[in-house]
């Protein structure tokens, strides 16, 4: 199975290749292998599957659990459609909603416990505007370990420290495999596969955090948007990239303030008067717009308010927030001598990114996780199924893994053009061959600083045009002068390349949609109104003849109808104040 191809590059073959060992990836690989134990499934990861991805330290709960007796798949699908201003192909959301309970039960069997009430029923909390979907995970710190045990049990083939850089396609347009480079040795690897599943996380290093620290991002900083860039260069369609992800967070710490956790205990998001200003803390673009307005107003900034709660309640909240997902939160507060008991905690909004986990943009997929390239799948934060969260990554990863393994059984490996491998090797290794040049951290800083200056909503057309010119200058530097001194820096160099690709895609998609939608996520100052007549559609971006083009794609007919009076449920986010 292992052999060398010309140029000293090693090559391996498999049925299904999964790229990314965070949340969706391990589940996709596991489900593929379990469905067809005779098959060869490889899980590729640029760090180490044991602790990679957004949930490296676990998760405090499920934000979108559709559990019989508490909510229905129809209700959930309706809520997500409304929260996304109607732009939602419902089939993937409905599929998720139907299957996620089975995945919850499976995770429970893996040893990840979910909170139950005294009667033994799942203890689901209400955070969303309409339905009830939030389920705490008392031992949420064990998620990655539990997953890893299952991968070991099925003897999964895991390749850590390989960073995928480009997909390979065959002459007929089908997926042929991937090119990867080792992050410790810079050795090249070609993996030929009948199907490839991209599970490479969000584009979390797109905007620059206010702290100026490149890695102080909201998303796991390892998630640089490599998956979006790879899908783009392979010719796959990406949907609604103008629908940015922007999160409310603890200012400077840049991690979640977690009103989802604190909300059911009585905590809430408040202005400087200690007053609520939004109806509900569930994240939507409309909620973020009200957040943004409050920040800019005389009642700003915005705070997480817990200081009215009982000491033991706060202790319980701390035992969650300071133990899982982003456990250094407690250290941050200790360092500033801030205590939930005594004062409100200053919040802010995050830098921009792409992430369907909380938003709606990403590689376009159908209800089987299929992209527009035959044999190529995507799942998790980088696929465009809206408001995925962790359970969406698990469930949609499972869906993609099961479909891909069946697809692989009916097909053969496709030949790729060896010249593509040679060209990619030259592109990737160029920064190592230079003796002088610009280090990747400076290329990255400049790109992301420009993202903040020009792309952060509210979006202004002229600023976007200036950004395009500046990005072109950075690209020239990246292509001709970027310098890497070792394999690690080369990984950062490739990430800088992905970040710039994502920034340029964000410009292209944002300029195309000449309306405002999704609240703050796509607030265009010159087109402040929502225009359902012309824009109740997806925008698809893809690479054609070397350049990015955008086109409209109709929203698929709804499976779950939405009543006229229901459509505006998420528009009324601001609390009405007595006159």
């Amino acid at each position, binding site marked *: 199975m292992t052999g060398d191809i010309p140029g000293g590059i090693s090559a391996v073959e498999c049925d299904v290749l999964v790229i990314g060992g965070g949340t969706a990836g391990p589940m996709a690989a596991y489900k593929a292998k379990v469905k067809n134990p005779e098959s060869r499934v490889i899980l590729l990861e640029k*760090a*180490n599957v*044991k*602790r*990679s*991805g957004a949930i*490296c*330290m676990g998760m405090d709960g499920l934000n979108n659990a559709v559990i019989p007796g508490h909510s229905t798949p129809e209700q959930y699908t309706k809520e997500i459609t409304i929260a996304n201003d109607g732009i939602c192909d419902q089939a993937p959301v409905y599929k998720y909603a139907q299957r996620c309970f089975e995945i919850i039960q499976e995770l429970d069997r893996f040893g990840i416990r979910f909170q139950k009430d005294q009667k033994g029923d799942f203890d689901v909390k209400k955070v969303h505007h309409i339905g009830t979907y939030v389920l705490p995970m008392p031992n949420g710190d064990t998620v990655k370990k539990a997953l890893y045990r299952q991968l070991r049990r099925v003897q999964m083939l895991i390749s850590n*420290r390989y960073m995928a850089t480009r997909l390979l396609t065959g002459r007929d347009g089908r997926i042929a495999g991937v090119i990867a480079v080792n*992050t*410790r040795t810079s050795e090249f690897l070609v993996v030929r596969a009948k199907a490839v599943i991209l599970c490479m996380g969000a584009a979390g290093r797109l905007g620059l955090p206010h*702290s*100026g*620290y*490149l*890695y*102080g*991002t909201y998303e*796991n*900083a*390892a998630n640089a948007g490599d998956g979006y860039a790879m899908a783009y260069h392979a010719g796959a369609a990406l949907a609604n990239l103008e629908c940015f992800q922007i999160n409310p967070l603890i200012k*400077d*710490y*840049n991690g979640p303030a977690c009103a989802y956790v604190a909300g059911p205990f009585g905590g809430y998001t408040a202005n400087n008067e200690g007053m609520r200003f939004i109806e509900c803390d569930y994240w939507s673009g409309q909620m973020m717009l009200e957040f943004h307005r409050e920040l800019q107003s005389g009642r700003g900034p915005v705070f997480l308010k817990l200081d009215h709660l009982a000491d033991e309640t706060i202790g319980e909240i701390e035992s969650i927030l300071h133990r899982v997902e*982003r*456990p*250094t939160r407690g*250290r*941050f507060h200790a*360092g*500033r001598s801030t205590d939930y008991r005594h004062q409100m905690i200053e919040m802010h909004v995050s830098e921009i990114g792409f992430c369907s986990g909380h938003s709606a943009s990403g590689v376009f997929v159908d209800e089987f996780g299929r992209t527009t390239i035959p044999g190529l799948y995507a799942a998790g934060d980088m696929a465009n199924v809206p408001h995925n969260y962790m359970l969406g990554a698990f469930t949609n990863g499972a869906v993609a893994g099961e479909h891909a393994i069946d697809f692989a059984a009916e097909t053969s490996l496709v030949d790729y053009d060896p010249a593509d491998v040679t060209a990619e090797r030259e592109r990737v290794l160029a920064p190592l061959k230079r003796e*002088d040049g610009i*280090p990747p951290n400076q290329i990255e800083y400049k790109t992301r600083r420009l993202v903040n200056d020009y792309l952060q909503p509210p979006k202004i057309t002229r600023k976007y045009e200036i950004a395009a010119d500046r990005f072109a200058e950075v690209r020239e530097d990246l292509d001709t002068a970027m*310098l890497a*001194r070792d394999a*690690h820096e080369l*990984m*950062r160099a490739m990430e800088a390349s992905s970040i710039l690709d994502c920034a340029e895609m964000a410009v292209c998609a944002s300029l195309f949609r000449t309306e405002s939608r999704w609240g703050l996520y796509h607030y265009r100052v010159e087109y402040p109104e929502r225009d359902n007549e012309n824009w109740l559609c997806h925008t698809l971006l893809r690479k054609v003849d070397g350049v990015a083009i955008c086109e409209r794609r109709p929203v698929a007919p709804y499976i779950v109808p939405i009543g006229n009076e229901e459509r505006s449920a998420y528009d009324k986010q601001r609390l009405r104040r007595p006159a």
Partner: protein
Amino acid sequence: MPIANTPTTVPVVIDADKCIADKGCTVCVDVCPLDVLRISELTGKAYMKYDECWYCMPCEADCPTGAVKVNIPYLLR
């Protein structure tokens, strides 16, 4: 143009007395999602080689001897 080295104070600190990297342990280096830790050839102990930290804590949580401490990066503190 030549490359300069700009100093930064790094967030991850290793207690050299507790670290057993010189006995073959590589746990913290293995689990870091950003791959920023290395074993020093000079001292045989783990250290933070690249200031690219998400202050996420697997290195500290998985260290078998409690030698690793993750601090908040200075710019965020």
